[in-house]
């Protein structure tokens, strides 16, 4: 009876919930609660409860057939060395150390690593009253007024208790542009031009999120709002280590959003894509289109701990151990540095080998760990709150408020994604419905228990619906659906 128990963190979002992964002798994994984990007290959301679904182990492959790791590394090196326009993508879903290793390869190739997110949270200036790594979640409980630009229940459930605590401490909570939230005192369906009506001041907190499909304009609008009223701003982020990755990137990150990368591939400007635990098929709203785009690449090199759609498309897959087995650190959204109990360094070693093949220097885990710790200004200590302020600063002046983007043709609706970990990782979930306004029910003559047909240029599909109080003209869903063509899709809607 040998059962392995790993202390690790949920990869779903930046909260970085501590948990145990148990692995039985047959390799079946299950979650157990780690009650002493300070970020979450052992509590887990739906994604956390289902984390084993996430760990579908990748297999090392070369052009679609199983290969051993050295051959794969050689094949990858061969393809990368000859390529002229290489783009490297790591959204922050792996350890800081592996990310550093990935950056080393980029250096050898003379390129930079993208996180697919624009703008980088680390580039948000402190002038805007926020910490680069966000505020500590404990601090969220002390805010006097909170403006929510996300749906915590669906998107970042582990902050619900923080918000409830804030409310118990007397905070007023307003939900902006999202569905009616039980914990919010009011829901306001207002555009950026009316954000001042939110009544925020320097004791207030703005909670929003930044992710690969974020609208930069929206982010700037929020930063601008924070700057104007002196409120703190806290950006939630998907992926376990997006904060750490951003910090590690200070020097050699580029600022391409994922959509930009995909456009460049489409346009032939990018011919080779190397990804580290990042799957554009899963990340892009229109998965089918993403598949077509990726097929246009000359080289698609995937370094990944888990099997996902992109490993099916890749020319070379370099498989690493599952995240929970890895040695390494993660930095959560509040800047808390957390360390896995695992000792797996296969991913690092593979990247070291790859770097060597490409003519760069070899490295090992210890080196990278040291460099990372140093880069965040905290060498030697392994746990603790990090509030580094070394990030490059970005000008955060006023931004043109662009409301024209929301012009929706008569009889059409805007489909808005409530991004959540299930969507990012395209995991099975029971959010198989769209949210619809009560007025729409009447307008479309919907039958109780019936379905709606969503239509876009991608085609039509049937879906269940739930009646909620949501902003007018909008359809929301927490499920990735094939008719979507982008983060905001204009769709037609009919009852059936």
């Amino acid at each position, binding site marked *: 009876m040998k059962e392995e128990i790993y202390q690790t963190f949920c990869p779903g979002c930046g909260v970085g919930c501590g948990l145990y992964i148990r692995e039985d002798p047959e390799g079946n994994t299950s979650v157990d609660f780690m009650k002493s984990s300070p970020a979450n007290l052992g509590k887990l959301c739906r994604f956390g409860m289902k984390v084993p679904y996430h760990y579908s182990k990748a297999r090392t492959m070369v052009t679609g057939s199983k290969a051993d790791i050295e051959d794969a590394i050689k094949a990858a090196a061969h393809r990368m060395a000859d390529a002229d326009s290489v783009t490297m993508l790591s959204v922050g879903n792996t350890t800081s150390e592996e990310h550093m290793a990935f950056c080393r390869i980029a250096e050898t190739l003379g390129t930079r690593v993208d996180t697919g997110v624009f703008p980088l949270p680390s580039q948000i200036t402190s002038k805007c009253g926020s910490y680069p790594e966000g505020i500590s979640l404990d601090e969220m409980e002390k805010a006097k007024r909170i403006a929510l630009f996300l749906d915590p229940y669906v998107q970042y459930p582990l902050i619900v208790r923080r918000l409830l605590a804030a409310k118990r401490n007397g905070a007023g909570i307003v939900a902006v542009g999202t569905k009616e939230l039980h914990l919010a005192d009011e829901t306001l369906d207002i555009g950026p031009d009316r954000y001042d009506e939110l009544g925020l001041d320097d004791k207030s907190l703005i909670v929003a999120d930044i992710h690969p499909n974020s609208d930069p304009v929206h982010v700037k609008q929020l930063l601008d709002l924070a700057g104007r009223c002196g409120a703190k701003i806290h950006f939630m982020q998907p992926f376990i280590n997006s904060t750490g990755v951003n910090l590690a990137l200070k020097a050699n990150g580029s600022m391409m959003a994922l959509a930009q990368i995909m456009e460049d591939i489409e346009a032939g400007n990018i011919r080779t894509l190397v990804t580290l635990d990042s799957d554009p098929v899963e990340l892009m709203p229109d998965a089918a289109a993403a598949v077509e785009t990726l097929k246009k690449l000359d080289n698609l090199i995937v370094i990944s701990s888990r099997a996902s759609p992109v490993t*099916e498309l890749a020319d070379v897959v370099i498989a690493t151990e599952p995240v929970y087995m890895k040695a390494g650190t993660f930095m959560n959204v509040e800047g808390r540095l957390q360390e896995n109990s695992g000792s797996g360094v296969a991913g690092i070693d593979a990247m070291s080998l790859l770097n060597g093949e490409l003519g760069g220097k070899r490295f090992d885990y210890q080196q990278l760990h040291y460099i990372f710790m140093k880069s965040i200004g905290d060498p030697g200590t392994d746990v603790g709150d990090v509030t580094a302020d070394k990030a490059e600063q970005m000008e955060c002046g006023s931004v043109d408020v662009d409301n024209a983007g929301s012009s929706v043709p008569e009889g059409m609706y805007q489909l808005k994604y409530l991004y959540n970990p299930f969507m990012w990782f395209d995991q099975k979930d029971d959010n198989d419905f769209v949210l619809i306004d009560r007025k729409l029910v009447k307008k479309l003559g919907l039958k109780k228990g019936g379905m709606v047909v969503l239509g876009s240029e991608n085609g039509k599909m049937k879906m269940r619906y739930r009646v909620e109080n949501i902003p007018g003209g909008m359809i929301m869903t927490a499920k990735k659906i094939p008719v979507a063509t982008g983060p905001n899709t204009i769709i037609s809607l009919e009852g059936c």
Partner: protein
Amino acid sequence: MNAISRDTGAMSENRRFIMDQKEIINDTKDADEPRIGVFVCECGVNIGGVINCQEVADYAGSLPNVVNSSVNKYTCSDSGQSEIKQAIRDNDLNRVLVAACTPKTHEPIFRACVEEAGLNPYLFEFVNIREHCSWIHMQEKEKATRKAKELVRMGVSRAIQLEPLESNEVPVTDAALVIGAGVAGMQAALDIADMGHKVYLVEKNPSIGGKMAQLDKTFPTNDCSICILGPKMVEVARNKNIELMTYSEIDEVDGYVGNFKVKVRHKARYIDTVSCTGCGLCVEKCPVEVPNVEFNEGIGTRKAIYVPFPQAVPLRALVDRSVCIDCNACVKACNSSSVDMEQEDSFSELDVGVIVVTTGFEVYDPEPTHDFGYGLYDNVITGMELERLINASGPTMGKLVRPGDVTSPKRIGFIQCVGSRDKNSNRYCSSFCCMYALKDAQLIREKYPDSEVYIMYMDMRTPFRNYEEFYDRARDMGIKFIRGKPGKVTEKEDGNLIVRVEDTLTNSILELDLDMLVLSVGAVSGDSNERIRQILKVSRAADGFMMEAHPKLKPVDTTLDGIFIGGVTQGPKDIPYSVSQGSACAARATRYLSQGKAITEGITVDVNEDVCVSCGICVPMCPFQALSLEEGKLNVIKALCKGCGTCAVACPTGALQQNHFSNNQLLAQVRSVFAFEEE
């Protein structure tokens, strides 16, 4: 531990993901999506006079998955049915919903109708808008129409969820077990055997014959009971298809229709039944004499080794070891060395396809309650004791004497309904007591014309051919009838009995001085019946007898397929009725045996093995033993399942589902009770 985990067959899933992206889109029409036809019946004016059927049909047409809706004058008529069949063909329907009357009468008709059109009969849905709507809202036509629409909406959402079901077939072992070899059991065994099937006839007593063998004469013809029964007993013993197991008891029964496994215990007789000839030499030598309780109701004696009665089948001796003094006199006396004091109980395992239960009854025992002084006064006896007293082969060779002083009684009274029709003991009528009292009274009057016979009764019940005439004859013979139940019986010093009774016809209180009093005791189910009932899990009726599946239409079936009950097992009845029930059981049972297969209920439960966690909570819920945990897995024996669905409720995981009444189907119905206010 129920942690979430899965094996990592991720590759194929991802491939599917990429393909799915294209497939999901544009797939708003499912190939085998339900296509429902709705038929609203006007039932003449029964429905049409209250409900606007056209409006209902139009509304049905607007519901999802309904492709065809129409109104018929009489949907169940030939033309209505052919319209359904036509619509199935024309519109490629795969579900049919009829909104008409009650499924209890008409569902079979429409199921057959859709089956003829090629649909699985379980894809038919019935909505009751007559009994449950038009007839109960006759003055509120608008409300009734609205309700009818909603009922149809509920039906449609259930119809969408319907699934085809198949009845199950199980092979049937070509052998029958008949438990109890009284006259009903003998009849059943003979009939089944004569139809060419193997029969095991198990009798707990050392001889077959049952209660009828003890009787003197039988009404209404007064022919000698054992004279007509004897040949039948011999016939049973001779029949090659019947394997007789006397002095044997059923220990265990397992399995289900067609495949019962039965464990029979053969009690030790201490006699080799093969070599024993029943000559009786051993009996003569036996020094131990005890009352003959078994056959003569305790009147007279038998030895420790004895032959049950002269006409016993099999005619073999047996030893009552509880009184035997081990003198071995019998062993020495036996010419064929048949006595074996070392014998032990032996066992047989039988495989049978059907079981007929004809375990009969016990005579009501007035002793514990001392009804009318029984057990206190020597000269109060029961009807069955009287049978033995007047029987020519009985302990007195047919001479009627009273037990107290062995003198011939001259004034004899019968009290009817002892242990029957009594709210304090048994509420039911034992049905044969009137007739046997009439018979015994006649026999006494015939033999002893100087005797006076009184019958004290509440009602005289004489149905069936020649019974009333028999009653008339009794009256003609000078038997005195007193309508009234005696209040008090006291014993005089000479052993005579004073009976106070009110004659309710003359409103006079009578005080009779009688030599002997006969209590016309009724029938009760008794402990050994109860034991068998529990082994078989047959239901128990309120009167303690076993319960038939339906009091009118399935009088010898039980709710358990393949198990039949006949004769007094099901409730008190006389000999002709018992014999015909024996035959009825044989006919019902042979249906399975001759077909060689049994069709079981289509509506059963199914277990979803992926979801079942083998907690076993459901197992004791099933009254039919259809569920069992075998090697950590739940096993459903479809042949035993009656489809009540109570186990599905107990199941915490929802792994157990009752087909045709699945949670999805019922919840769909519940959910469509309601609609948006704007709809």
